């Protein structure tokens, strides 16, 4: 299945792109996707401890299984307001 990954703020700048498509096996979880993304963009390791990941615009656990068409986003802690 194909998953669209978006990058925001410092993640966007570190990866050098606003989004990227990843091909994953069926039943892959958010944690699996995270590993794939991190191996493609090892620079994100620097912010591993506080990186946030959303699935379809909400926060879910990393055990959540993905499905075709899902939109995942990687970003740092928010700083609006």
């Amino acid at each position, binding site marked *: 299945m194909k998953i669209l990954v978006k990058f925001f*703020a410092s993640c966007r700048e570190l990866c050098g792109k606003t989004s990227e498509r990843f091909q994953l096996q069926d039943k892959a979880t958010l944690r699996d996707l995270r590993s794939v993304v991190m191996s493609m963009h090892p620079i994100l390791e620097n912010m591993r401890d*506080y990186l946030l990941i*959303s699935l379809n615009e909400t926060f879910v656990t990393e055990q959540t299984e993905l499905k075709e068409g899902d939109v995942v986003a990687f*970003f*740092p802690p*928010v700083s*609006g*307001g």
Partner: protein
Amino acid sequence: MLEITRDDFSIDEIVQKIKTEDIGAIVSFIGIVRGKSNGKNVNKLEFEAYKKMAILQLKNIRAETFRKFNVNQIAIVHRIGSLKVSDNILLIVVGATHRDEAFKACRHVLEQLKKTLPIWKKEFTPEESYWIEGETHGKDA
């Protein structure tokens, strides 16, 4: 009214819009670009949003605030893009029958938004620019 926008806002207009016969107290918060941050001069700020998620988060915050406080109206506008010193960043307007609930609810919206709204701020000083990253991780939303 919940908006993520490049445009500036008019408080008078939004106050006028949310008024009903029940409302006796309106408390508003405006966030503004300061000329200094941690002792450094600031030339401008840039705000970036995950817009779709931000609107969803604003809806969540509004719904949760209505559950917790006895207030009638909540309007929130957060600007994005490049903002200079003294520009408006954020407006929260809360209308209620009584003042106590209006104050508490407005403050609550602000604190929730600072923790969970997917918007990021980049500071530009005369020498450099850097992303400001929040202390909390948003997962408690």
